[in-house]
């Protein structure tokens, strides 16, 4: 039987609805604005204070981007490191989390080591030296391996694994399963929500790879889309007049206006990861909750 709703209830609902609509508008609006600008002509962009409905839809910016090898190539690079990086990260995180739920000798010590990295990082230069010493410079692996395991994700995933009843392990052992089989046949299938959630975390992290790409990759043709994006988007806003002059000179080729190209590039670089999101979303909410709240 439906609960009868009082007037007060309905007013509260109405206010809630209104506020949520407002909130989503606030969040969606920048995207809309970027889209509108990316399709507008430079003349219109310059002469309109606040461009909402471009009169003519111009495709110059998109044409420029699709004509430039760099952008397409960098999208490819980013897709590659996102897919490979997420898989590697999930594999390493889940195996380590699995190891850390067992009552092993020195388990506390290893947990301490993991927690230690929460507070103390090595810093840029030591990390660079290690990446260099292991020969990863200029390889895509330099973007994947150094940050493959996030200590936070590891702890949460371990917590998730701990919530799987210990009796299941024992039963499996009695049935003759070894550790690897327990991991692949019992733990992983039961942890799909957690894997989806952390997979998404890792994927978004990899998709946004920017600084490490500049640091570890010397060959510009290997740069990720965020690096290229920043190069395209960055507008002349500097107090150093010489730098702005040089930037201006570098721009002086007959390109479409940087503003609209920038906006178009943002749209193109955001869409792929947005597409992935809805498919993982239902696992996502569930997985994060399950990991953190113990029932």
């Amino acid at each position, binding site marked *: 039987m439906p609960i009868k709703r009082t007037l007060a209830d309905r007013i509260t609902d109405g206010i809630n609805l209104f506020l949520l609509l407002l909130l989503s508008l606030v969040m969606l609006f920048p995207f809309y604005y970027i889209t509108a600008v990316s399709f507008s002509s*430079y*003349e219109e962009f*310059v*002469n309109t204070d606040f461009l909402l409905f471009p009169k003519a839809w111009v495709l110059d910016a998109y044409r420029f981007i699709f004509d*430039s*090898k*760099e952008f397409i190539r960098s999208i490819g690079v980013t897709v*590659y490191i996102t897919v*490979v990086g997420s898989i590697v990260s999930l594999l390493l995180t889940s195996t380590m989390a699995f190891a850390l739920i067992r009552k092993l000798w020195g388990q506390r010590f290893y947990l301490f080591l993991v927690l230690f990295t929460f507070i103390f990082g090595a810093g*840029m*230069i030591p990390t*660079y*030296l290690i990446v*260099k*010493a*292991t*020969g*990863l*410079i*200029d*390889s*895509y*692996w*330099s973007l994947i391996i150094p940050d493959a395991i996030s200590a936070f994700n590891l702890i949460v995933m371990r917590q998730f694994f701990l919530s799987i009843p210990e009796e299941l392990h024992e039963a499996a052992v009695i049935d003759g399963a070894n550790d690897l089989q327990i991991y692949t046949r019992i733990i992983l299938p039961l942890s799909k929500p957690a894997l989806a959630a952390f997979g998404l975390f890792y994927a978004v992290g990899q998709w946004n790879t920017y*600084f490490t790409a*500049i*640091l570890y990759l*010397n*060959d*510009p*043709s*290997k740069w990720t889309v965020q*690096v*290229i994006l*920043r*190069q*395209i988007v*960055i*507008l*002349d*806003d*500097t*107090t150093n*007049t*010489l*730098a*702005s*002059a*040089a*930037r*201006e*000179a*570098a*721009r*002086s*080729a*007959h*390109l479409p*206006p940087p503003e609209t190209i920038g906006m178009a590039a943002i749209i193109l670089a955001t869409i792929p990861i947005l597409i992935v999101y809805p498919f993982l979303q239902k696992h996502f909410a569930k997985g994060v909750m399950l990991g953190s709240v113990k029932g």
Partner: protein
Amino acid sequence: MKTNKIVTLFAALCLVTGLAGCGGSNNNSESNTASTNNAETTDSSNTTTNKTNANTTTNTTTDNAAATTTDKKLEISSIQGTWASPLPDPAGNGAKMINEKFNVDLKSQFVPYDEYANKLPVVMAAGDLPDMIGMEGVDANFVKWAKQGAFLPLNDYIDKYDAIKNIPKSVWDAVTVDGKIYAIPNYFPAKYGKKPIIRKDWLDNLGLSMPTSYDELKKVAIAFAKNDPDKDGKNDTLGLGLAKSIVYGAWMGAEWDSGWYNKNDKGQLIPGNISEGFKKQVTLLRDLYKEGAISKDWAVTKSADARKDFFAGKIGIYYEQPYDISETRFKQLKETNPTAELAVIPPFTQDDGQQGFTGLPGYYELHSLNANLKDDPDKIDRILEMINYFMTFIPVDQRNDQNPEFDWQHGGVGKGYNMENGVALDIDGAFSEMPETYLGIRYWAPTDEDTQPAMVLQDPFTKSFVQSAVDLLKNTKTYLDPVNRVHSDLLYAKVSELDQTVAEHTTKMIVGQESIEDWDKMVQEYLSKGGQDIIDQVNQLLDKDGIAGEWK
């Protein structure tokens, strides 16, 4: 060698798993070792990695090299920042042309300037230093590294090279640390930096004349905001384009801007932003703000947005330079405002009778050499020879396909550039075709006038503006700020923080949250927080080296 084992192991792993992207890692670790330090490591890494390419440098120390130097192919690595986008391909055609002409194997690495300041220190700390290190300007890092001996002192070498030798002393001073020259700067005209420009058609529309003092400037700017200078019947114009942190303000001469021109009562040079002259400028801006002649939002406006508004025809006074500019914005202004005319506002007469703008340091970007090259005179010579070659000035009227040097440097007509109306125009995105891209060296113009920036422009409106600006500036004096020529560690360490505080105070003064009467209090704060120490040190350095501000 534990490291090598790991590398080999890793490489083997990559081969086995056949994962893409790994090949690069192996290659690079090798080229990195090659570029670092002494010849010994270079040799060993080259032999162990078993490169088939016989051309790669083997800096074999089996000497008596003197006779064979020019025949020997040298590997030369470089790292430099760039604003170019896309970045030049390290293996592009231009690089190949250089390799052939100078018998080298050039390994250039380009990094966007946005991140270069982060990357370079890491590379330096890791000991990865290439043979040539580019920087955007002299800063605390440059001085530190020079003092630590990372760069090669060049004093003994430069006299052999005609173009390099001609760099004026005021610029050499900028790259000199403790009497040693540590870098070769690139040319940039001191005269042709950002200058205040005004909509001359607006002046004419309102029957006003070119301002010659701050009082007149104030009247003009207010009239621009209030009297509908563009005659469109709408109240949609502003007098002066101002952006946050007071970029660019209203610099109408050396006395009033942020360069070190004014002196305190002890006779010491002081930074412009705490001088009486600057106070005058801030007072003007405050008045303009009160009258609505500058944007109400200026304190949060980016300079790029202020410029956009100027070129959309909404602002009467802004800053632009006649050198190294893009024609797009000018064309845009002329299309939307067909009657637009631009002119540089001539500098105002100062209280001391002088009249002129503060100039730029006279260089932009510099290249240092790795100190480890000191035992390899062949390589030093080869690098300087290349720099000298690319620095040798080609007069503007000879920059065409008839001049073989120009043609070669630009990658050849039809490939790197096209000839249009007798002017060489770069082909879009053809950076990688042009040898001149790869070393990042620019022609050193004998005088600023020799640059003739109007000659290379196509758009008639831009061209006429640039020409008129150059004509005006030719007969205008330029003040060379001496602070660019000394290296004060206190200045490097503290000045940006102090400047920040001053910018905050002056911003508040302009918008009326703080009284202009508090100016002296602000100056005291600046001085007591370390400003006086900076002033003392800078003046001491200037006295020691006998450097003074000069008008050119």
